[in-house]
């Protein structure tokens, strides 16, 4: 135990916060097209697929700007999902099928991009769209933010590759080992409000850990029986830790 490196007890992505102009209209749209379910998790309209993280719709006149999908819907069969989309109501890209890994993107009514991915190896789920996993964070100060995440989360890069974004044909994208976080170069990224919550199994330990790392951390709060705190990355983005 003495030799173990202390790390954050983050297990998974809990909630992704998506600013939209009309939360009710957006919720109905997601429910209609993607079979998302509305939960009573918070005061905001919150949606879920069968598994994984929730999406909390935050009504706002100012929207975020994402240069690449911040989240992906995992599904059993993305080709079938694409074929069934109501193209008159959904702006979606052509699917890419690389040896049964399939992915495409769509935009919600506010132009927020979201990805849809499938892998024939995944266990079939009763619903085609079944899960939301990691978060993809566009970073304006990519190198320093990447270094910060590696230092604070005590992790290293699992995959280091490039993707095409509106700003660059070769924007660097790095997936962090053991955490559901991928960072990518995005000079035009704009995130206001809370970005997301991560689920932890030891909020108090994580609170003291973050303090020890010199991270800007808010107080531990208890909201609707759930303990939570906020912390901020060097770009001023707010993240939450949630312990249920």
């Amino acid at each position, binding site marked *: 135990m003495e030799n173990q490196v202390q790390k954050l007890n983050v297990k998974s992505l809990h909630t992704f916060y998506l600013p939209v102009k009309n939360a009710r209209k957006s919720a109905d749209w997601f429910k209609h097209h993607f079979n998302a379910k509305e939960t009573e998790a918070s005061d905001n309209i919150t949606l879920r697929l069968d598994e994984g993280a929730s999406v909390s719709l935050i009504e706002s006149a100012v929207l975020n700007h994402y240069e690449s999908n911040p989240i992906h819907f*995992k599904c059993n069969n993305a080709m079938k999902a694409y074929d069934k989309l109501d193209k008159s109501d959904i702006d979606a890209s052509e699917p890419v099928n690389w040896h049964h890994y399939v992915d495409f993107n769509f935009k919600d009514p506010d132009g927020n991009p979201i990805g849809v991915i499938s892998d024939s190896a995944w*266990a079939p789920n009763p619903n085609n769209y079944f899960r939301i*996993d990691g978060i993809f964070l566009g970073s304006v100060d990519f190198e320093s933010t990447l270094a910060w995440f590696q230092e604070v989360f005590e992790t290293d890069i699992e*995959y280091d590759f490039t993707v095409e974004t509106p700003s660059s044909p070769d924007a660097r994208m790095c997936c962090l080992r053991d955490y559901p976080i991928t960072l990518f170069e995005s000079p035009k990224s704009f995130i206001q409000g809370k970005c997301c919550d991560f689920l932890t199994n030891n909020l108090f330990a994580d609170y003291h850990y973050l303090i020890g790392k010199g991270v800007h951390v808010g107080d531990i709060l208890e909201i609707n029986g759930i303990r939570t705190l906020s912390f901020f990355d060097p770009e001023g983005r707010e993240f939450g830790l949630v312990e249920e």
Partner: protein
Amino acid sequence: MMTISQFSEMTGLRPKLLRYYEETGLILPAERSSNGYRLYNESQVEVAQLVNSLRQAGVSMTAIREFLEASEERKKQLLEEWRSMAEAKLLSVQVANQFLQGFDIQTKRMHLVHWESQKTIVWLTLEMEGNLHSTINSITKSLVAAKKVTEKCAYIRFTQSENGRVKTEVGLCYEDLEIIPEDAEIQIIPQTLFATMVFKWTMPYSCKPLISMINRFGFQQVGEPFRKVIPSMEEYYTLMIPVATPKI
């Protein structure tokens, strides 16, 4: 007749090398003079140059010896074999060059794996019940325990069946091909160089890292990829993309 010095000048081969070829039985002097000097005849000039050229091309001494004594038909066969080997070496060097040109200190997880000899994989259609990698792991473990397979791993591929559905197949290297199920498909995979990448089964980013890496390294895919599964590594699999095979 020529002395070794004269023969050396005619062939361009140093006397030390000619003496070595003599020791190995490849080029023997036509005769010895009364004072023991080596003597060569004109017809041996061509042979000596041929031997040396084949050595420069990487052909073994044993193979050259066989070639020199072979019939015309056998000489043609040997040449074809050597051409294939040279092409395989060339491909390996090309791929190695691509890998090194594309590699930098940030490169993670993209590796090269060389199957130096052909491999026979028996593909079985899998009736999926629940989790794929758990199913594969239990099949592999039981076959390994029963010593029916030569490798402690399995391969997975997905194919489109006639009705458009995706079929899942598991590939195993059976010890004895006589005992394989009747509906199995046998695939002989030739000597192949693969670009590989390790993934978690549950990764949230599809195959974008892999496609990005393949483009960056400039690899050309030469066949269908498949996944390698090791029972002891339940969370991960290795995606194997064939990027070079010798021409047949």
